[in-house]
């Protein structure tokens, strides 16, 4: 009996260690494949130059400036759309809606969360693109606005469901106290509940942001992929994710270009990791406070 018990314990321990090993492996492989890139690329040029042209006719250049800006632009645009709508919807669900409506709306959000990115990208080409080109009088609708709208839609479910969780877990005594003092329900929502749940709401938005930064297929299909430094939201942009998706297939293994793509992947990894980490820390601080 004891032996069996120990065996099972050992099995689960092994399992746990294996997973940890795999996860550490992912990171270290990424780092070690990215490092050789900097033998030939000046790290300053890599981060700040905006010319990315590894297969140039004239001179190969590896600068991720323009894609970094593109990624940030598209993500910011997405958040601009998704954050107000998301928080609004979350507040409605947690404080205004009747339980019945909540039961109807929640699956809607889950379905929205389940729509694959390639489908959203497809709609970006056939639906959002033409609308944008007509609205702004542009020759073509594949640009940063298109990407922002689509990513905003994709970030919405994350923001809504996590913000709602945060809002619902605000202690009922808060809102009771506020209502007892004569505040209206609206004032209670805006001035008491949202501030009380602010850290959770921020964490939710950060996670939505992480999702937008890392999204690949949608931006690959819908943003036009021009590598120039974008001048406005109506320009075509090429984000870091789409650059990897476009060029990883063409690149001969173990060349500078190959390593450079992994370096882009590493930058992406670090960006999302920081965003997720921040959200994690905020969330835990907030949970700690509540207890």
């Amino acid at each position, binding site marked *: 009996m004891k032996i069996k018990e120990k065996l099972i314990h050992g099995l689960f321990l092994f399992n746990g260690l294996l997973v940890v090993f795999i996860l550490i492996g992912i990171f270290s492989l990424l780092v070690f494949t990215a490092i050789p890139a900097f033998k030939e690329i000046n790290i300053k040029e890599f981060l700040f130059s905006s010319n990315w042209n590894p297969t140039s006719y004239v001179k190969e250049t590896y600068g991720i400036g323009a894609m970094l800006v593109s990624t940030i632009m598209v993500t910011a645009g997405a958040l601009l759309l998704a954050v107000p709508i998301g928080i609004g919807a979350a507040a409605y669900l947690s404080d205004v809606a009747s339980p019945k409506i909540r039961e109807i709306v929640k699956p809607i959000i889950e379905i929205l969360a389940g729509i694959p990115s390639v489908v959203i990208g497809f709609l970006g080409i056939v639906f959002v693109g033409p609308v944008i080109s007509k609205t702004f009088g542009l*020759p073509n609708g594949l640009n940063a606005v298109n990407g922002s709208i689509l990513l905003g839609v994709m970030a919405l479910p994350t923001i809504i469901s996590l913000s709602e969780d945060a809002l619902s877990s605000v202690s009922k005594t808060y809102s009771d106290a506020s209502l007892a003092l004569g505040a209206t329900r609206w004032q209670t929502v805006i001035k008491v509940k949202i501030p009380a749940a602010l850290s959770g709401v921020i964490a939710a938005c950060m996670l939505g942001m992480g999702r937008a930064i890392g999204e690949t297929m949608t931006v690959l299909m819908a943003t036009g*992929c*021009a*590598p120039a430094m974008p001048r406005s939201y109506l320009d075509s942009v090429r984000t870091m994710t789409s650059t990897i998706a*476009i*060029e990883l*297939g063409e690149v*001969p293994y173990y060349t500078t270009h190959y390593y450079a793509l992994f370096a882009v992947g590493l930058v992406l990894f670090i960006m999302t990791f920081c965003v997720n980490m921040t959200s994690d820390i905020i969330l835990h601080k907030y949970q700690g406070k509540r207890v």
Partner: protein
Amino acid sequence: MKKYIRIIATLALALVLGASNLQARDMIQIKGSDTLINLVQKLSEVYMEKNPGKYIAVTGGGSGTGIAALMNSQCDIADASRNMKPKEISRATSLGITPKRVVIAMDGLSVIVNGKNSVTKLTMDEIGKIFRGEVTNWSDIGGDNIPITLYGRQSNSGTFVFFRDVVLKGDYSARMKRMNGNSQIVEAVRHDKSGIGYVGVGYVKEATDLNVVSVAAHAGADYASPLNAEEVKSGKYPIARPLNQYINGTPTEAVRDFLLFEISSEGQEIVENAGFFPIPKEYEDLNKKSIGI
């Protein structure tokens, strides 16, 4: 509950074990050019119908993707809408690969503009200027006063490289939109009055609302159209190119059989139906040598 889980788990395991006969079928892997992919897809579809028991997997991704896959020993045939660069050949040799070239069709790379655009004739020099971003308004080359919108391919495309090396002799304007495939360029230019793009001729034969630009090799030379088979074959149309497939060394029996089918009269008929031009005489010897007839 437990029963269900057990059933599901058993089913899943059975499926995986059932599919896991370790020996993959003898399958020809073809990878590469998006210009060629639809043609090669049709060729292999007909070939597989005629030869049951033969398997071909076709994957796209661009000429660069195909050539890289050949070097990395991940495919048997690499489609390429350009020739391998000397740098690539030496890299392949150092990896123990002997690339051999087979030409399966000719393509008149077409420059296309919107059907409402009055500019229908351009010289090579003008096209170069437009795509390098030196000319940015249609009025500069005899059109209406609208800014030019550039549509091109992504850098993994052979068309991208061929057009750059032959027409631009420089880098593309960074403002050029990089589309995922030839047909996306066609679609974009059809809807964009200010657009100009370049695609394989196979993509424009049936397209409407488009003008295929006639091109002159230099100022003063005659303009020729890629839609005219004779002008492409004779070399009068300046941006014609052979469409290649690269193999590693002596082909296996299966690969050889498929290549022979492609260059046979039946295969060439499919080539013409797909909108491309049949293999010119000058490449016949090369093909024979590469395939080993």
